[in-house]
């Protein structure tokens, strides 16, 4: 595992790329004067590309001017039959909206429209408006892939690293300087969410489903800069779902949950119903629905208690 590369000197930068350099502590220009075309060709690069990479590494590239998303308006387009969608929906940070509808109803298309900042140029004809203004063409790419972070059904990491190395790598890619603080926050909160404790030294691949899920959620809350979080069906894998939602709400994320899980669907104040490729209607969750949620959550806690008792090797019985 590499150490911190935040202030990588030209020597390390070039040797890591595979260049063989005589002495240290020279400037990038000096090295590039010395390196001949054949060496560049062997490594499959050229001087221009090296300069660009080096600048990118040091964040000198026209680094995104950190657009703060205050609202996202999805203006209705058309469903699969070409019928006009009857609604627009305005999303704000700190809000949870669930998206419901059968498989294949057009959920992915909706999310892809948001991600692409659709301007009536996708199959649905929807228009996405950020902070009340239409994003111009050049903005479309500077937002790229930073708009939505996605917690998918996948519960496993594939990276061969331990928890600390993983968080460091992610923080470095975000150019975050106070990595130690972040490390502490993440591990603490992830442990709050997961039933069983794990440490910074635990290999990612050794985490249980619940632990992985907890780490992924906390990581998204604290390290992902995307203003929108899409949660795709998190099962009840032994994590505290309410607390998980709180982390994300407190991180001022716009939270979209695509789910069939009644507890999650009801945690949202609004439910967007998708039907036949179109936004069909919005249901506001009212007091009577909140009562249903309470009931379900109570049942969940009971199940959890029984699960814990069984795990601890105890006997269980009816109250």
């Amino acid at each position: 595992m590499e150490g911190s590369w935040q202030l990588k000197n030209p020597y390390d930068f070039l040797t890591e790329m595979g260049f063989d350099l005589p002495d240290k502590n020279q400037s990038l220009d000096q090295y590039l004067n010395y390196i001949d075309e054949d060496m560049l060709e062997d490594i499959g690069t050229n001087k221009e590309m090296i300069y660009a990479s080096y600048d990118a590494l040091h964040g000198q590239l026209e680094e995104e001017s950190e657009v703060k998303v205050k609202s996202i308006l999805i203006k209705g387009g058309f469903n699969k039959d070409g019928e006009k969608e009857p609604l627009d929906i305005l999303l704000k940070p700190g809000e949870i909206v669930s998206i419901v509808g059968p498989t294949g109803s057009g959920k992915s298309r909706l999310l892809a429209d948001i991600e692409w900042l659709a301007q009536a140029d996708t199959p649905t004809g929807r228009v996405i408006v950020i902070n009340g203004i239409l994003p111009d063409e050049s903005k479309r790419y500077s937002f790229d892939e930073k708009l939505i972070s996605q917690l998918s059904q996948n519960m496993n990491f594939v990276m061969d690293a331990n928890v600390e190395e993983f968080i460091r790598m992610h923080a470095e890619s975000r150019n975050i300087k106070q990595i130690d603080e972040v490390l502490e926050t993440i591990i603490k909160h992830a442990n709050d969410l997961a039933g069983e404790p794990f440490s910074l030294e635990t290999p990612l691949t050794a985490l249980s489903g619940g632990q992985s899920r907890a780490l992924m959620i906390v990581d998204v809350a604290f390290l992902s800069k995307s203003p929108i979080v899409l949660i795709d069906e998190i099962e009840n894998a032994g994590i505290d779902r309410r607390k998980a939602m709180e982390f994300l709400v407190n991180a001022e994320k716009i939270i979209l949950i695509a789910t069939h899980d009644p507890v999650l669907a009801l945690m949202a104040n609004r439910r967007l119903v998708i039907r036949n490729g179109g936004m069909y209607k919005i249901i506001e969750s009212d007091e009577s629905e909140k009562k249903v949620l309470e009931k379900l959550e109570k049942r969940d806690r009971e199940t959890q208690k029984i699960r814990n008792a069984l795990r601890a090797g105890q006997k269980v019985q009816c109250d």
Partner: protein
Amino acid sequence: MITVSGPPSSGKTSVIGKTIEALEKKAIELAVIKFDCLSTADELIYEKKGIKTKLGLSGSLCPDHYFVNNIDACFHWGLKENVDILITESAGLCNRCSPHIKGILSVCVIDNLSGCHTPKKIGPMLKFADIVVITKGDIVSQAEREVFAYNVKMVNPKAKILHINGITGQGAAELGRLFLSANDYQNLDDKKLRFTMPAALCSYCLGETMIGKDYHIGNVKNMKL
């Protein structure tokens, strides 16, 4: 014309297939030239979708050299067949491949599962691409996706990065849109490769099988040991 390249099994065929599906509604005549090394059944996948396909197998030749020796003829075939967009698909077998041509839209497909340091290990086909498509994002976590995309950005800061799911096709419509805005050409005269191809001309290129210094002739490079 558009060149699509990427390491083996990164999802090139799926991405191209989904992108063509997304473009189909626009009534555009598309064709794919699939370059491969030994054998492939991918042309059948394309044919099944009703896409015009030609297959080129390089056999014992360097696939990249085979590509560049044939690309002109392929382009003319496309013109003859009245193809609007001709897509070439070639597997980057040695990471030093370099099939991209100046002025021609170039795409590199690379997958999240290949490991987060992989972008640093891939040469011109990634570094000199206009668009980098990252696949298999559904199998890894958000953080892994972000780190991977960051590492791509580090080696090719100018490229547009697109995330495409080759199974559901999410993101493919957007790639299709970029395909439509690719430059149009009537011929490939005076076109140049973006980067030199991997070189070789030694006794082994010509069929030598014996091992030992006496048999090394031509462009030979020795390891420092």
